[in-house]
């Protein structure tokens, strides 16, 4: 029949499928990285008269980006699941703050063992997500509003726990998570370009959790249901999927991710304080959206979100190396998000128009 369009999935130069939203953002980022590398080369030549290897591409710097991206990346995994199911969670930032304040408080002032404190903290995150998820799924109300309420409440709970003060933790409590993996190979440390390579254990948690989430969404019945619910809840219901329980489970999974992500952030910062997670949800959502997950749900992947969070921090890192002041960094980051998502939508629009034209011509 003439009106059937031949469908081919072309691969672009990167691993992403043609027309995926990731394509635009990866193009922007690659262009950006090349610009920074050229800048560093020129700057190096003009300053010292010799071509030096750009510091952005130092292995130590790349590992550093990974370290910076870890907490946001872990939260992005949970957020990906939530957004794939058609929801959103604005409470993750403040829940992270609350978690850090709770753990710091019970360990430092309550004398609780750090392991129990972390476990309890994670349980609290999951419980809060269960409450919000139950309200969202059973009453079928807007997740935006419910989690916004959750965000505000978490801020209050966190401040109440520490009586609005910050609680610094001792090194011994979370130091084990921070230990350098490369020290296992050589206790003196491994150096490349005369810089020591750093890779704390908690980065491994990030990588492992990414793989688990990826498999969960791609290779399990549960993952399939998440995509189905996000793409078309009505059709999902009529296809025998329990839409409510799927949504609820997604929020529970998100609670787990928040707990683990908050643990890594607390390990890095070492202090339980309200500002730890402030505006974190914005970074997380930005990373997920850059990664090509549709706000409307049902479309996107964990790998996208993983890459998205690393891209975000690569851009920040490159700008810092270029000496761009932080105010401008915000402007550039914002623009990159807007351009990449708008660009993705534009290319989708053009390809749809092309398809319509082809169909009309065929008729």
């Amino acid at each position: 029949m003439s009106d059937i369009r031949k469908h081919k999935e072309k691969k672009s130069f990167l691993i992403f499928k043609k027309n995926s939203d990731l394509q635009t953002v990866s193009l922007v980022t690659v262009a950006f990285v090349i610009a920074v590398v050229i800048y560093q080369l020129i700057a190096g030549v003009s300053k010292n008269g010799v071509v030096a290897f750009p510091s952005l591409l130092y292995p130590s710097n790349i590992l550093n980006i990974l370290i910076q991206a870890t907490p946001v990346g872990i939260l992005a995994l949970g957020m990906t699941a939530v957004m794939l199911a058609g929801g959103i969670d604005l409470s993750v930032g403040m829940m992270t703050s609350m978690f850090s304040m709770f753990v710091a408080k019970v360990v430092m002032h309550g004398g609780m063992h750090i392991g129990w404190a972390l476990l309890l903290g994670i349980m609290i995150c999951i419980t809060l997500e269960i409450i919000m998820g139950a309200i969202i799924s059973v009453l079928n109300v807007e997740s935006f509003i419910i989690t916004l309420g959750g965000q505000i409440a978490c801020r209050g709970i966190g401040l109440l726990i520490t009586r609005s003060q910050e609680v610094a933790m001792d090194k011994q409590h979370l130091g084990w998570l921070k230990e350098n993996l490369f020290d296992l190979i050589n206790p003196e440390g491994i150096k490349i370009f005369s810089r020591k390579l750093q890779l704390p254990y908690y980065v491994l948690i990030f990588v492992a959790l990414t793989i688990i989430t990826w498999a969960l969404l791609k290779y399990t019945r549960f993952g399939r249901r998440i995509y189905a619910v996000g793409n078309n809840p009505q059709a999902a219901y009529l296809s025998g999927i329990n839409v409510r329980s799927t949504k609820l489970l997604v929020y529970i999974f998100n609670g787990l991710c928040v707990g683990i992500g908050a643990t890594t952030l607390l390990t890095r910062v070492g202090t339980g304080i309200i500002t730890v997670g402030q505006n974190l949800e914005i970074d997380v959502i930005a990373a997920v959206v850059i990664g090509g997950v549709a706000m409307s749900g049902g479309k996107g992947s964990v790998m996208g979100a993983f890459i998205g969070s690393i891209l975000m921090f690569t851009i920040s890192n490159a700008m810092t190396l270029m000496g761009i002041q932080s105010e401008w960094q915000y402007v550039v980051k914002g623009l990159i998000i807007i351009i990449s998502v708008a660009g993705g939508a534009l290319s989708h629009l053009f390809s749809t128009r092309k398809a319509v034209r082809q169909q009309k011509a065929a008729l």
Partner: protein
Amino acid sequence: MAEAIFRLRNISKTFPGVKALSGIDFDLCPGEIHCICGENGAGKSTLIKIISGAYQPDPGGEITFEGKKVSFTPRQALDAGIQTIYQEHNVFPMLSVTENIFAGLEVVQKGIFVNKKDMWEQAQKALKYLHCAFDADALVGTLSSGEKKLVEIAKALVFKRKIIILDEPTASFSVSEIEMLLDVVKKVAARGVAIAYISHHLDEVFRLADRITVLRDGLLVLTADAEDIDESTLVSSMVGRDVSAFYHREFFDRGEAALEARNLSGNGVHDINFTAYRGQILGFAGMVGSGRSELMTLLMGGAKKDAGEVLVEGRTVDFHSPADGIRARMCYITEDRQHAGLFLEHTIARNSIIANLVNRASFFIHLDEDYRVGQKYIKELRTRANDANVVVSNLSGGNQQKVVLAKWFHTNGEIYLFDEPTRGIDVGAKQEIYQVMLDLLRQGKCIIMVSSDMPEMVSMADRVMVMKNGRIVGSLDRGEISEENILQLSIGGSTI
């Protein structure tokens, strides 16, 4: 009769793949009530959308308004005095009657300030003229559906519209509200307003109409004065298709009872009784809104039943969700495949396995197996797609419907509920879907089919139940199934 205020000459409208109207002539005179009749899909809605400016006709047609040739946008049509009152309420429930009447057209003084008093008085005057039992301050959300319709008519009066189009105004009305509305319509027409009135209810048509126009498959069948026509002439003019429109199917022996409903009520349907057998198609006919899809949803477990019982293979079942229906080997091919059937942004493979997830024991999914399932049904149903990794939104309507079928075939269903199996599908693909349905019967499966497509119902069904206002009003055996009989049952007789 007075000179026509509005004239359509040789109006056609083509949508991709379908000609909705061809060569229609239509007049509206001041003070006249002109009823438009036709089956579902005859082209009535397209016609009123052309009158109201929502659609532009194909080149070659001519629209004249007050003697001048015009081409309206909806806004221009409204400004010229043509008000369309659609079937669904176009009101703001949280605003008062006055605010609704003047929404977007507020009377202003000194440039920006709204003149509330003046608006209120005008609204009140119109309501009084229509003998409304509520006043201009009432919140529209608190009014009944009949009263909401009156608000829209009052709006037309306030702005002195010359033409009012009413599309199925009494669809959700009680008997007294229908009486009220008919009185109001007559009264408004007596003021010299031209009224185009679309209805499925023949008694309403005969009580109101000065003239009647009948459409069938986008063609004008007749326009006649109401005195010159009776109910049976009207019904027979709405039917009477060419033999080539029908499909000649093969019949199979009746098997055991597969699905039975006893005094079933809930989800807007009442006292439903039927038995569907293996090897047969039980059709549910009726006008849009008669409760057929609601019944299907109820049978599948998608809505709560209030009373009665459903038996599958002779055993009473109690479904709490469609998942229960699927476990009982039932399949529901929904009317709206884009919104309730498919996951448009997902691949054929993903869509094909989704309904069978409830039957699958293993937690893990094998992508290769999904792909094989997708490929198998592409081959079996002759879906025109390169492979199972094609995203469903790229397929044409007929092929999308085949993906929906694949989704259900993969659950190994025994009882198939087809709601409008071939809506929006071209003729070639239709025949293929019919062939698939007959194959199911050959395998001894049971089919229940809802269809507004008369030739489809007449040629495919072994037995037809006709529904009206959520109830079964009659049933027809194979020998009795004809367009005329179905139509007589679904629109003839009294309104309730």
